[in-house]
Each structure stands twice: as structure tokens, then as C-alpha cells.
């Protein structure tokens, strides 16, 4: 095999000129521009590491442990699958794991001394909430992953209980929280300008998401078996029912929206499946031989439904007209629940300098 030959690829120089047809120059140059596709990543709790998922939807397989250089006790992947926020297993440091380069780069995120137990991204993946339930605090961080612009600490101690469900708007300015108290969930919003305010009540909110590029949000009520839209969060907070048990909402545990905001995907735990709600009307139930626990975006239209375990990882493919549930078989059972690949001798861990912003 001529290795040089297969690395020859194209560089295209586009000539854009007003009034002229588009033209291009094509030149061959050495590159590694054709590679195997990566569908995304998943956190492997048994290995305290991230694993790569090779392939395309419907023809993917579990890859090896990604060489981050540190062991993680938890990690949350961005929707673009280009980085993850996690907590190191030994020191409890909050770190950003940059997946765009290999070997990995790990950046320590300072000023989050509280124990972080939950990370919630906005759908764009450039902002995140770091939740410390123990201290009833959360930290808003924006400008991810390359230029984090600041970190804001929000004190939640005025709430009757620690919120468990969160959503963050794409602009990173608006936060939606659900506090469960008895048989009622109370929804609160937070913004830097208006602070924390109650926006409504529900039975048992199990998942919430902001629409893309919007300050409207969608929430799932497991007790009421409903999915509803909340419009004008900072104003009237109007609640509009999107789907109920009639559309197949039985036990919602997670939800996510399509990039174009035309569809809401709702994962039911029992019976396992996903209901795709079209904003234009109608819903489609896609059964799954699994018990979904999440709907984590992996790119534009792929969503992870289950955690990595000794069973196949299940995905939802929302690419086509009809959603489909796909599996990712374990490619190598020895490493599925096995030990972490030996850490690199010199993990590239650095600290990000983030200017502190005022919080409440």
C-alpha cells in the first residue's frame, strides 16, 4: 500500500467574484483528510473514561477508551461531541476534555470548588450549567469550548429544595429549573437580569429543554404523562400542551428537540420507546427494546437513549421522516466494562483562565 497515495486529497480554491460564475481550482495535496467517521462519544462509568463510537448511524460500533489522560467520575458530552465537561475521579476537579485532538487535551475549570454532580448544556453546546446540589449552587459558563467568557455563580438557597431538572437557553442567559416538592414540581426561571422567579407548576417534571435559538422551552411531566411548551418564559409563561398519553406519552424520562425546532423527541421508560412529536401536528411512537434513560444529542439528529452498560448502547436516529432506534454493539467485551487504558505519561492538563462574573 502506498500510504502517501491514499493521503492525496483535494484542496479547493474558490474564486468568488461579483458578476462572475463561481469557479474553483483543484489541487492535490498530502493530507489525512479521509478517515473513519466518528459518530460520537459516551461516558463509560465502569472505566471512568470516555469511549468513542465509530461509524455512521445504523452501522456503528463501540470503540476503545479515549485517551484523556485522567480518570473521570462523571462527564457530560456537548451536543457537538467535540468536548466534554467532567469531574476527575481522584481530585474532583472540573475539567474540559477537548475531543478535537488526539491525544487528548484536558483543561481544568477553576472557581468551581463545590462538588459538581450535574452538567447541563444548552443545545448549541457553547454554554453549560454546573450544578452543585450539595451546596445549592450552580455555575454558568459560556463561550465553550475555546473561549470561555466567564463563570457566574448562582445561589439557589432561596428555593424550597434543590432543583433536579435544568434547562439552559442557547444564548446561555436563561435558566429553567424544576424543584420537586411532594407531588408538585415548581418551575423557576433564572436570568441575570430578573433573577429567580417562579414560572409555573406541574406534576412531576422529568425533563426540560429550550428550543433552539429560543427562550421558549419544552417540559415533560411524568406524573401527568404530558409534554408541554412554555412560551414567553420571562413574561406570561404560557403553557401549551403538545402531547399526552393519547400520543404515547407514558413515562417520559428525557426529551430533546430537533435542530429545526420542528420535532420534540420524548423518551418513555415504560414501555421503552420514543415519541416524536411534530410541532406541525401528529406524533410517532418508535418502540425500543430498552429502557431509555436519556436523550443526549450526538450531532444534529442522533440521540443517545441509554447509558453504556453490558447491553447494547441504544440510539435514536431522527434523520429521516420516521425516527428509528439503533443499537451500538459492544465491539470488544473485554474492554466494555474493563479497565481504563493506561494513562499517557504526560497528560496535557492545563487550566483555563476564566474571568469571574457576578452572580446572585
Amino acid at each position, binding site marked *: *500500500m*502506498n*500510504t502517501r*497515495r*491514499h*493521503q*492525496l*486529497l*483535494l*484542496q*479547493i*480554491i*474558490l*474564486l*468568488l*467574484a*461579483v*458578476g*462572475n*460564475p*463561481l*469557479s*474553483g481550482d*483543484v489541487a492535490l495535496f498530502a*493530507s489525512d*483528510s*479521509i*478517515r*473513519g*467517521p*466518528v459518530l460520537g462519544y459516551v461516558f463509560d462509568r465502569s472505566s471512568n473514561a470516555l469511549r468513542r463510537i*465509530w*461509524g*455512521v*448511524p*445504523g*452501522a*456503528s*460500533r463501540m470503540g476503545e477508551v479515549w485517551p484523556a489522560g485522567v480518570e473521570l467520575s462523571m462527564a457530560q458530552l456537548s451536543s457537538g461531541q467535540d468536548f466534554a465537561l467532567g469531574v476527575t475521579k481522584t481530585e474532583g476537579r472540573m475539567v474540559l476534555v477537548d475531543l478535537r485532538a488526539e491525544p487528548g487535551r484536558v483543561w481544568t475549570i477553576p472557581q468551581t470548588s463545590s462538588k459538581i454532580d450535574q452538567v447541563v448544556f444548552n443545545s448549541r453546546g457553547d454554554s453549560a450549567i454546573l450544578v452543585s446540589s450539595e451546596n445549592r449552587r450552580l455555575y454558568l459558563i459560556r463561550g465553550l469550548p475555546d473561549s470561555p467568557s466567564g463563570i457566574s455563580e448562582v445561589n439557589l438557597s432561596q428555593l424550597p429544595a434543590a432543583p433536579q431538572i435544568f434547562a439552559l437557553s442557547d444564548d446561555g442567559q436563561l435558566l429553567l429549573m424544576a424543584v420537586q416538592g411532594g407531588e408538585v414540581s415548581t418551575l423557576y426561571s433564572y436570568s441575570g437580569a430578573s433573577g429567580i422567579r417562579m414560572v409555573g407548576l406541574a406534576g412531576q417534571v422529568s425533563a426540560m429543554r429550550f428550543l433552539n435559538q429560543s427562550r421558549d422551552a419544552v417540559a415533560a411531566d411524568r406524573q401527568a404523562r404530558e409534554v408541554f411548551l412554555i412560551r414567553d418564559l420571562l413574561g406570561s409563561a404560557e403553557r401549551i400542551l403538545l402531547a399526552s398519553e393519547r400520543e404515547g406519552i407514558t413515562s417520559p424520562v428525557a426529551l430533546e428537540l430537533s435542530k429545526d425546532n420542528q420535532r420534540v423527541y420524548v423518551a418513555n421508560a415504560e414501555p421503552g420507546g420514543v415519541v416524536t412529536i411534530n410541532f406541525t401536528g401528529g406524533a410517532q411512537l418508535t418502540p425500543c*427494546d430498552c429502557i431509555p434513560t436519556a436523550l443526549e444529542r450526538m*450531532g*444534529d439528529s442522533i440521540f443517545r437513549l441509554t447509558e453504556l452498560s453490558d447491553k*447494547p448502547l441504544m440510539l435514536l436516529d431522527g*434523520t429521516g421522516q420516521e425516527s*428509528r432506534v*439503533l*443499537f451500538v*454493539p*459492544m*465491539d470488544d*467485551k473485554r474492554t466494555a466494562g474493563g479497565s481504563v487504558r493506561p494513562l499517557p505519561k504526560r497528560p496535557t492538563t492545563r487550566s483555563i483562565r476564566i474571568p469571574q462574573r457576578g452572580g446572585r
Partner: protein
Amino acid sequence: MPLAAERGVPHGSVPHRAFLFLAIILSCSLVLFSQETPPVITELNPPSAVAGGANFTLVVTGTGFMDEGDVVFWNGSARVTVPDSPSESPPTRLRTFIRASDIATAGTATITVQNGFSGLTSSPVSFTINNPVPSISSIKPSSLVAGAGATTLTVDGSNFISTSVVRWNGSDRPTSFVSRTQLQASISAGDLAAAGSVAVTVGNPSPGGGSSGTATFTITVPRISVAPTGLNFGDVLVGTAATLGVMISNQEATPVPISAGTTAGSPFAVASQMFTIPGGGSVPLNITFMPPAVANYDAAASFFIPGSGGEQLVGLSGRGVSLSYQYTLAEQAPALVSPGGTIPFPSVAVGASVSVQFQLNNPSTSAFLIDTINSSSSVFTFVDLPALPASVPAGGSLTFTISFTPVVPASQTETLTVGPSTFVLAGIGLVTGATISGLTDTVPPAQQPKVSVDLSSPYPIELTGQLQLSFTSNADVPSDDPSIQFSSGGRVANFIIPADSTKAQFAGAPDIAFSTGTVSGTIGLTASLQNGTADVTPTTIPTRMVDIEHLAPAITDVSIASRTATGFELAVTGYSTPRSLTQATFRFTQRPGSTVPTGVLNVDVGDPFTAWYQSVESQPFGSQFRLRVPFTVQGDINAIGSVSVTLTNAAGTSEAVSANF
């Protein structure tokens, strides 16, 4: 101890002292009044004589002899005595005549000399009369056969005396004195038991006496003969006995004891180990051969005459052989099977039958009787069993057929008993049929269809099984596709089929999904079924073949991987089942309001993709790829609103997928 007490006389008593004094006076007077001294004998010539000898003259030398009147006494008997030399005075030697009768028997005579003048007598001197040394001139008999029994030996010779004794190899034997020239001795049977030479001597006791010279007595080996001198027992079945006879003849006149035996550790044995053959007679004897194993045996029978050293040998030979067993499957060569071994029947579907011909061969030189042929199972039955008991002739065989008809898909074993031997009958009943369903002949790539396995009929037992995936690529650049896997991982999925059910259960589900991958070719699904460790897969193995066709490329994602003021990088993800691509087309659309016209750019990507698909790096991905195309923009990059990408291969062109700037 006081002297008086020793003598029993009171110490100091007068009578005792008076007597002692009188004795001393008398002694002194004898010395004072007698001047002569007694004669003294200093030598006798001859000093001794042989008993039984003739008259002879004895010369007595000494001192104190008188010129005349001295008398020599022989055991106190005066004998005529004269001086030996008349001229000698006083004489020192006296001569007297001793008669033969004086020395007739051995012993000792006392010689004294009495002085004729003084009457004094010399101190006695002993004269020895010795026994003679015997000699042997002949013995009768001088030879006997060993074991001939006790006999009397006559010894002729001389100088025999009444106390002479005949010695047998130096040991005294009871001896009778017949005459001075003949003795007779009793020789026991034990003395004549062993062949050999015996030294016979005669001994006379002292004084004098001694042993004669040696006469040789010969004990000869008894002569026996055995016929025949060799026995060949031929081929004998292991564990059975064959007998042949020999005749032992005694060529001696006297009975001969025989000790019979065979080579230690050999499978040959004599009927009698100790017996006697009368003189001149014969005795028949059987020898048996019982081989313990299949082997050649060579040994010898020995007929030994105890103590004599006589022995005759008979060579023995024979071969141990065993019954041989063989079975024959239809249109196959016979196969040998040993007792305890297994006769494997071909696996056959439940309800169907398969037969095996069983044959017993008797290679021995004698017929063999079979009294038992049976099996304890109803699934193994006999078709043409002969009447029992059945005799299998020497070198012949016995044949019958065993049929196996399973009733459940399982491994079946039973014991077959044929005479002294047992065998294991083993067969496997197979599932009658099974199908793999849920698939069309052609399946799209990157799909995850579900398949199920169904039996044609249920069974009252639980079965296990595996569904196995295989893949054969027919792509332009063929390659395996590792993404072709079951949802459970890997290319083998386990299932069970519960009792009384026809439906396979995959971890509780009635079907299982697999990924079709992204490479053109044929995916094979093959099911196998087991009951325990027995493979009960139907004869027609459940198989389903589905094709992945040569299709136009598919783009699963197009994205702007990176962007700067002067360029951007486009990432195109997709697959092409033939593992080839020829052209990429990029269709740019201007942003609304922009005056830059829409344009299409076709790029030949054949070579780089051929290189990719031929690379080792591509093989884990089937036909998948992620193409990153860097664009350098000369002009206003913000004028570009979106880019739509299509890819082309020999099968067609993909659907367009766009990415917005």
C-alpha cells in the same frame, strides 16, 4: 587343714607316733642291706606291630640286665629270653619271641624285664599293636541309576577288620564285616537319588588303621523321553483354553518320579505337576493354553526328575486372538470397534431411521458360542437378529443390523451386549427443520433488521442455539465490515427454544437485530441448535442469505468543520457500498442578498478514495468515510449561504445533503 584331722587320727596320740617311727626304721634297714637295682627298659625294637601280623622277635634294650636269667614279660607272661649278643656282658639287649597270636588284635601290650638274680622287675614299657590300613580291590555294584532305591554295596579288598567301616563320599555307612577281604555296606535311597560320582572308601580305626584308597561308584541319570517334543496350540481366543497332550516314557527299569511344569508366567499349564512313571512304562499328560491377551506366546514344558538332574523339555507355542467386531454404515467402509467402544450412528432427524450393520468375527481355530445379544433401548432396535444361542464357526462371523430411530432431538446412548462384550450405541436425533425469518433477499446498508428462528415442530425439551453471521464482500475493493454484528455484540447470538415451543428466544425477545453494515456483498445467517452438548441442528442447516447491493453513495452528514475569514473546511460523512467513489459535487448557494452567483464544482475523487479503500485504516469502517475538504476562498466568504454535496460512484449519485454557513 591340720594333718591329724586329714588322717582321721587325733593330733598327738601315742599309738600313731609309734607306728610312724617303726616304718622309718624298716625302710632304712632295706636300703642298707640291698645293693641291686632293677633293670630299666630304654627301647623296644620293633616298637609296635600290626594286628594280625606274623610272629616276630622283639629286642628289648635297657640297663641293669644280667648275663643270664633275665626274663622278658609280655603282658605279665614270661617269654623265652636270650641276650641279643652273647659276647656282651652285661647285656644291654634282650631278645624274645612274640607269637602271631599275641598281636591278633590291636591294642597295647606291657613289656617288663625281671632280673633273674635279684628278681627285680623293670618298669613296664608299652608295646603298641596297630590296626592295618585297609585297601579296596573292587565294589559291587559299581553303578546304579538315580532313584533306584536302597541297595547293599559289597566291598572287596584286604586288611579289613571287624571295625572297618565303608564310607560314602567320606560318610560312614552301616558296614558288615564279612572277612578280612570283604565288607558289605547299606546304601540308602537318598544316597542314590542324585546322579553323579561317589567316592567309596574303607576306614579302619586307630591305633594304626586309616583309610583305604578310593573306589568310584557312579549314579547315572534315569532315561525318560517325551513325545512330541513341541506343541503348537494355534490361535486361541483370549480367555478361553485349548488343551494338547504329551506322552512321557520311562526307559529305565525302575520307577522314575517326574516333576512337571511350564515356563513361569506363561499362559501354559500342565495337568499334573508330580507323578511317577513305572519302570519301562509311559504316562500321558495334558497341557493347556489360555491366552490372557492378543499376542504370540512361546514357552516350554519341563519334565524334571527331582534330584537326578534329569529333564526333558517340550516347546510350547500359541497365539492369543480375540473376537473382532465391526460396524458398517451405509456405503461406508467397515470400522472396527473394541468391546466397551462406541458405535456412532449418523445423526438423523427425529422420526427418521438410520441403520448400522454389526458383525462379529471369530478368528480363532475353534467355534464360539454367542448366547446374548440385546439392547435396553427402544430407539435402538435389531432388524435381523439370529436365533440365540448362535455358534460362530472358527474363522467365521455373525452379522445383524441395528436401527436408530430418535424420538427427541437429543444425544441417545445405550448399551449393546453381544456375548461377553458390551458396546455403546450412540446417536443424535436432529431437529426436523428450522427457518430463519424476518428478512428479505436484499437489505439496505446501515440498517438493523430483526431476525427470528423458528422450528418446524415443537419438542418436549428445551434447546439452545446460536445464530451466526458471516459476510462475503463483492465490493470493488472487497473488505469485511466489522459493523456487521448482532445487537448483543459480535457475530454470534445465543438463543433458547423453550420446551413445547417453536420460537427462539434471544435474551427473552422473540427476535434479534443485526447491523447490515455498509459494504456490498452477502450476509449469511446460520442457525445451529443444541441439546446440552449434542448438536441437533437439522440436516438442512437453517441458513438465510441476504445481499447488500452496489448502491449509490449515501451521505449521512455534511458540516462545516471549521471556518476562517479566508476559508473553511467541509466535512462529509457517508458510505459507498462498492467501496469506490468517483466524483464529489459541491453546489454553493449564495446568501440572500448576495450578488455572487450560484455555482457547482465537480471534483474527481476516484484516486484518493481508491487509496482509502485499499488502506488498512479503512477496513474497520467497511465503506464508511469522513471526507474533510478544505476550501480557500478568494473573495467574500460571507457571500456563501450554504453548500450542498453529492457523491457519485458507478452505481449512481447520492442524495444531496447541505450544510449552512
